């Protein structure tokens, strides 16, 4: 897998940013941390917008070596979605999205424009001046503008800040689908753990300019869409799929269970209000409080449910896994 290699340091106001890490250039990576932890600065250094010292390599391409910038920001072929959006206020939505065509030296897949416009539901806004858009609309236009330029890596600085929960709920699937369509890996900065759990494949935690922990998201599970609207089946159980995912009957949908919120029961809870409930069997126990759980359809997850009682999680015992919510992902 190609990596974004970082070995950089830069003085900030109250601390020194020192990062040595390889970020996989696939899926969505979250940079998590409190405000002023250095995460936005790191994103801007990756983009080449802020100076730093050290090495940055994109796969085998050297972006920076020591103090010498080898590739200036405009030649890195990255996309950036700024926290304060920064649309071009003298242009309408169409021109905002297409202006990069004037500057790009690489040919861009002509099919991507209509598809991204469709995924982000921008059709009705295309003739609107950039100054006459709501917060959520501006966010979508900024995302389309960045993706249409065919970036090799999309950097998003708090892309969901300033949106209300309903807007977030509608936008998250769209961002995931658009990234998948553009086949573009993404690194996004967030201070909201729930948001990170919703759509990151891995998370990197930063505190005072230093990476403290890294974590991969739990493996995703695959369910099949039924003929009925908004309904998928997984191991004989039904799962509600929101409209945004727009999957056809018979297609696969992918979802994750939130590792921290799972419950195991020894008896069938029957009708529950939980979003997900399915019979499961532990097949191996790793350490004190994690186990590998296999569903009836053969798919498995690692669970770190705290297991109480010695024989509770004995190998092969019939259990039920209950989750208050499911998170859909692109695959």
């Amino acid at each position: 897998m190609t990596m974004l290699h970082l070995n950089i340091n830069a003085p900030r106001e109250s601390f020194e940013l020192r990062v040595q890490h390889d970020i996989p250039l696939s899926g969505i990576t979250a940079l998590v941390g409190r405000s002023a932890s250095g995460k936005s600065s790191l994103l801007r250094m990756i983009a080449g917008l802020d100076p730093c010292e050290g090495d940055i390599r994109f796969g085998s391409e050297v972006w920076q070596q020591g103090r010498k910038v080898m590739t200036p920001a405009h030649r890195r072929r990255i996309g950036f979605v700024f926290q304060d959006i920064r649309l071009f206020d003298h242009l309408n939505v169409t021109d905002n999205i297409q202006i990069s065509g004037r500057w790009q030296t690489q040919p861009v897949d002509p099919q991507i424009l209509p598809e991204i416009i469709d995924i982000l539901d921008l059709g009705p806004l295309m003739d609107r001046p950039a100054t006459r858009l709501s917060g959520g609309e501006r966010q979508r236009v900024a995302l389309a503008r960045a993706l249409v330029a065919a970036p090799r890596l999309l950097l998003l600085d708090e892309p969901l800040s300033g949106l209300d929960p309903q807007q977030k709920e509608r936008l998250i699937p769209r961002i995931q689908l658009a990234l998948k369509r553009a086949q573009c890996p993404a690194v996004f900065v967030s201070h909201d753990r729930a948001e990170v759990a919703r759509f990151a494949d891995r998370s990197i935690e930063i505190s005072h300019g230093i990476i403290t922990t890294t974590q991969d998201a739990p493996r995703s599970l695959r369910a099949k869409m039924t003929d009925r609207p908004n309904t998928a089946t997984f191991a004989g159980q039904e799962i509600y799929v929101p409209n945004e995912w727009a999957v056809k009957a018979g297609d696969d949908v992918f979802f994750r269970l939130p590792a921290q919120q799972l419950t195991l029961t020894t008896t069938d809870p029957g009708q529950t209000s939980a979003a997900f409930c399915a019979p499961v069997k532990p097949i191996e126990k790793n350490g004190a409080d994690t186990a590998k759980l296999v569903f009836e359809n053969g798919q498995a997850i690692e669970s770190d449910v705290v297991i109480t009682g010695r024989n509770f999680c004995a190998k092969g015992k019939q259990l039920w896994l209950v989750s208050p919510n499911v998170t859909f992902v692109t695959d």
Partner: protein
Amino acid sequence: MTELFTEIRPAVVLTLQLAGFSTVILMALATPLAWWLTVSKWRMRPLIEALVTLPLVLPPTVIGFYLLVMMNPNAPLGGAWLRLTGETLAFSFSGLLLASVIYSLPFAVQPLRTAFQSVGIGPREAATTLGASPLQAFFSVVLPLSRRGFLSAAVLSFAHTLGEFGIVLMVGGNIPGQTRVISIEIFNRVETLDYSGAHVLSLGLLVLSFIALAFTYFLSREPQS
């Protein structure tokens, strides 16, 4: 009355020519200068800023005096001009043009700087991440976003050149059809007690300047949403 118009016509034409050429040269000069002043991180930048603003505070006679000294055929500038064109720079239209460009420079640079500053770094960075080189970002994003600044810089430069007096008198003198602009013509007429001629010209300048300034202030109003 028609006689008066034929009499003042050369001064009016000359003044408009001077103001027109000055404005064109000023915009070409002030745009990169204002841009550099906005983005430069050079430590000595305040020195350049002070130099550009100097014509605003100095009496025109002081600038005129030094320009006159520099335009002397024995001085490097005056000598070079003489070898290049075969004419002396002092007391010529070219000399006058040079003087008025220097004199009106702050009036072109200041509105442009304000405009560039209010556009800020945001749109430029956004353009950069979309693949625009610094020059492309300037022309397709910064320039259109600061167009009101350009208009007001042009109008102010034009209006300010129209009203020059001291520096013209120092550098250009009072040669009819060559350096005698409206403000000098007014002075001449008052000296010879021709108040009606002075009146027509003064009123013309007053109205023109008022219109120019009103136009600029209408432009700099925030657009109503």
